[in-house]
Structure formats: structure tokens, C-alpha cells
């Protein structure tokens, strides 16, 4: 085995790290007299093109993956006509969307209407710049990588508003405002929850966070189970996926903020959702699941393949929740964000700060502290969930406390509905 490793380590065919492949290229270019600036531009372009092609492939493949997996979960077949297993379906969709007639509401402010889907797509792609794909494979090794991700993803809020506003449709604007209220509410647990990771790693650099996990031989999800749960739930709300897809509650607000969009502009919203889902899966895989590092496995399998595998593992869970969970009401979602996730995230920060403090001050070895921290934080996570379910959950009532549909008319709380007992009556007619 070591002989085999000697045979590839450091050579250009060492595919475990694709930077091995580009280094000879840069050396060749330097010998040809290309300046440092030129090599910088070429390397940046190569990395950018790699990420853009990954995004393009993801946007096309995931349409099929999502529809197919959700179809199987709901005992349907999903797309199965075009090509083997319906694999050509996304291409057919793209062609159809592109040659559809463009319908733009007559009263919509034109440039906002057109810019909104583009602005919605940009953050999801730009986030991928800071994801480390291997030990030397990262496009932009930013020291503020985590805040870069948070800042860019908060820009999506404005593009949602642009779409809803420019559609000039009541349902679109309602949908957009509801989504913005939800997005800003879930931004806080995300920001506060990820602080725990920064405290452990002592850096906002994503590569450093992966190296921390490698050094301490533990995935961050073990050290920070509560932060993982907070992040996972919040981000599935940010992505507008069930259980928090109030953006597209057909029964309430038609199609949400993209009701008025058709053709390729609608297609961009659709593609952007898939790209965002994959970008978020990449963030989860990097922050919580070790990124390219997987317990020595990355010495044999290329780290970027492991990362893509983890990305699709996380993505499968997103599809799973979409395929199985019902939708929450907006007051339930907002109350959950403000009254539960936010305090939990802050408690998590304080607990982690205390742990890191003790870890550094006592000077005991990592072999004591890593298992201890894992035990404490897992107990904290389980305890808080049990506490929530036992004590707190009934407060998130089944009916809104004050349903005021019209000012002046005080509608009393709705009575609790007991479901009809189908078993006794022999089923519905």
C-alpha cells in the first residue's frame, strides 16, 4: 500500500488533490515567461470554471434527482419517459422553458422584474468560492469565509423582495413579505449557531475548520450536535423547503413571489433553489461533516469525491424532509425561530465558550476533553430537545392566539377539532 502511495504522491496524476495537476501547468507557464499576474488570473479562471461547471452539472442533474427521489417517496415513478430512467428530462425542461412565450405583467417595473431571478441565483454560486475541496483545493481561502457565506446568503432576501414587488401582484407581494419575515427570523439562529464552531476552531476560515476536525479526529457534528440541528432546521427554512415552504403555499398565496414568472426566468428561480440547496449541503458537509477529511479515508479516495459524496448525502436528507413532512404555519415557524432556536443558539455559544475556556486553562490532554465535550454537548442537545417536547411544545398552539381577520371584529379562538374516528365508522364515505 505504501508503495502504491509513493507511486502517486506529488505527481500530476495524483488525483487526490487536483492542485497537483495544475502546479506543473503553472510552472510551465512561468518558464514561458508569463508574469505572476497572468498566472494568478489563469489559476483563478481555472478554479472558477471548475466551480461553474460543477454548478451547471448540479443544476441539471438535481432536477432529475429531486423529482425522481420525491416521486419514489410518494409511491410515484417520477420522470421516466425521456432517455434511460428519464435522465434527459431536465434538458427537455430547459428547452421548453427557453422557447416559451415571455409573459411579463404589463404594470411590472421592468428592470427589477428581470434582475430579481439573476440576483437570486448569484449568492448560491458565489458561496461555493470558499468551500475547500481538498488540502490545497480551495478557490478563495478567505479568513472571514464563514461571514462571507452568511453575508452573501443574506443578500437573497432582497432579490425575493424584488421579485415580489415587481410582479405587482397581491399574492406575490404577500408571499415575498412572508418569506422575508421568515428569512430574517431564521438568519439569527444561523448566525448565532455557527459561533460555536468559530469558538472551537478559533477561525472563520473554512479550511482551518476542516483542519481542526482533522487535528482533533472528530467531526464537528459530534462536538456541536445542537448547532447542527439549529443550522439544519434554519437553513431548510431559508431554502424555502418543506417543512417551511410557506413561499409556495399554493393553497394560500398561489405560487408565492414567483407567481408572475414564466419561461426561463421562472426556470432560474427553480434552478437557483437547487443550486442553493447544494451550496448549503456543501457548507454543512464542510462545517459539520469534516469536508474533504474523513478519518484517513481521504488518503485513498480523493477528498473532493468524498466531499461530493457528503454533499449528496446531506442533499438527500433535504429531499427526504421535502418528500415526507407537511408544511407549518407562518406563526409557528416564526415563534419557533425567535422563542426556541435563538435562545438555544445563544446558550450553545455560552456552553461552548465555557468548554473551550476550561480546555485551554486546565491544560489536560485532548484525549480527555474531546470525549468529554462530545458527551456534554450531546447530553445538552438531547436534554434540550426533550425539554422542548415535554414542556415547551404545547405553547406552539395548534391555532393562532388572536386570529384577527378584520380590524374591529374580534374572532374568538377556533375550537379544537377532533378528527373523526374512521376506524369505528368504517372509513369515510
Amino acid at each position: 500500500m505504501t508503495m502504491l502511495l509513493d507511486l502517486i504522491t506529488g505527481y500530476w496524476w495524483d488525483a487526490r488533490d487536483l492542485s497537483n495537476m495544475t502546479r506543473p501547468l503553472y510552472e510551465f507557464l512561468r518558464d514561458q515567461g508569463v508574469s505572476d499576474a497572468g498566472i494568478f488570473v489563469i489559476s483563478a479562471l481555472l478554479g472558477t470554471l471548475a466551480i461553474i461547471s460543477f454548478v451547471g452539472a448540479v443544476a441539471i442533474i438535481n432536477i432529475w434527482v429531486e423529482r425522481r427521489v420525491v416521486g419514489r417517496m410518494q409511491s410515484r415513478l417520477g420522470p421516466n419517459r425521456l432517455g434511460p430512467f428519464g435522465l434527459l428530462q431536465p434538458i427537455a425542461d430547459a428547452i421548453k422553458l427557453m422557447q416559451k412565450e415571455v409573459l411579463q405583467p404589463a404594470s411590472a417595473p421592468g428592470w427589477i422584474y428581470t434582475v430579481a431571478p439573476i440576483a437570486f441565483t448569484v449568492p448560491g454560486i458565489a458561496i461555493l468560492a470558499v468551500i475547500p475541496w481538498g488540502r490545497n483545493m480551495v478557490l478563495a481561502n478567505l479568513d472571514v469565509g464563514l461571514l462571507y457565506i452568511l453575508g452573501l446568503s443574506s443578500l437573497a432576501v432582497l432579490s425575493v423582495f424584488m421579485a415580489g414587488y415587481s410582479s405587482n401582484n397581491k399574492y406575490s407581494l404577500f408571499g415575498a413579505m412572508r418569506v422575508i419575515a421568515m428569512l430574517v427570523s431564521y438568519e439569527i439562529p444561523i448566525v448565532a449557531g455557527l459561533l460555536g464552531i468559530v469558538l472551537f476552531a478559533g477561525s472563520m476560515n473554512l479550511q482551518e475548520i476542516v483542519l481542526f476536525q482533522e487535528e482533533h479526529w472528530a467531526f464537528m457534528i459530534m462536538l456541536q450536535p445542537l448547532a447542527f440541528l439549529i443550522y439544519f432546521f434554519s437553513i431548510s427554512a431559508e431554502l424555502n423547503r418543506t417543512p417551511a415552504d410557506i413561499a409556495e403555499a399554493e393553497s394560500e398565496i398561489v405560487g408565492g413571489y414567483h407567481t408572475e414568472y414564466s419561461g426561463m426566468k421562472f426556470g432560474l428561480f427553480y434552478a437557483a433553489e437547487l443550486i442553493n440547496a447544494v451550496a448549503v449541503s456543501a457548507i454543512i458537509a464542510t462545517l459539520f461533516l469534516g469536508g474533504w477529511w474523513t478519518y484517513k479515508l481521504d488518503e485513498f479516495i480523493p477528498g473532493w469525491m468524498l466531499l461530493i459524496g457528503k454533499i449528496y448525502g446531506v442533499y438527500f436528507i433535504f429531499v427526504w424532509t421535502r418528500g415526507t413532512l407537511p408544511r407549518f404555519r407562518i406563526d409557528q415557524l416564526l415563534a419557533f425561530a425567535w422563542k426556541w432556536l435563538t435562545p438555544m443558539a445563544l446558550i450553545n455559544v455560552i456552553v461552548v465558550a465555557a468548554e473551550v475556556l476550561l480546555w485551554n486553562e486546565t491544560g489536560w490532554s485532548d484525549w480527555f476533553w474531546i470525549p468529554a465535550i462530545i458527551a456534554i454537548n450531546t447530553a445538552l442537545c438531547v436534554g434540550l430537545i426533550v425539554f422542548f417536547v415535554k414542556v415547551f411544545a404545547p405553547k406552539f398552539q395548534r391555532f393562532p392566539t388572536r386570529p384577527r381577520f378584520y380590524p374591529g371584529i374580534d374572532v374568538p379562538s377556533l375550537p379544537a377539532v377532533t378528527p373523526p374516528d374512521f376506524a369505528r365508522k368504517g372509513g369515510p364515505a
Partner: protein
Amino acid sequence: MHSPVLTLVLHLEEVLIVGAALFAIGLYVALSKRNAIGILMGIELMLNAVNITFLGFARMSVSEDPIQGHVFAVFVITVAAAEAAVALALAVAIYKHRETVNIDQIDLLRW
């Protein structure tokens, strides 16, 4: 290192002039707009211009502790955010009471 064909240089003066231009635009917006929210936008523009000059000084001028410029910029951002929150709440409250956010019609204190 090959000698580049041309070397572009950015001086402190140019950064300060960009900041000044942004500040002048912000001042114009703050002084001339009728809508209270529009005035607030001008103030935010001015605060951004000030941040640009702070960071320009932090980067290029002589200082014992250049991080001070960054600290001040962060505090400016903080104060601006708090100010925006309260000022917009005021605008909303004024609208509720006076049915307008046009400041030339809000003349309660005029004698």
C-alpha cells in the same frame, strides 16, 4: 518577477476623494429629499463615505495601531444600524399620526 508593462498606483488622496464624492452625494440626498426614508438613505451614504476614509487612513497613513480605523468603522456600522432602526420606527410612527412621511408637512414644532 518580470517587470510589468505598467504599474498602477493608488494614493491616499484618491481614496479620500472617492469618499468625499460619496459624502457629497449623501449630503445632497439628506438635504434635498422630501421623504423621511429618503433622508435616512442620504445619512447612510454619508456614514459609508466616512468608513471609506477611515479604512483608507488605516491602510495607508502612519499609525501606531492601524487596527483602530477598523474598530472605528465597526462602531460606525453599529451606530448606523441602531440609528436606522430607530429612525425608521420614528418615520413609521410619524406616518401613523400625521398620515405623511413628507418632512415638509411635518411642521408641528414650527411657530
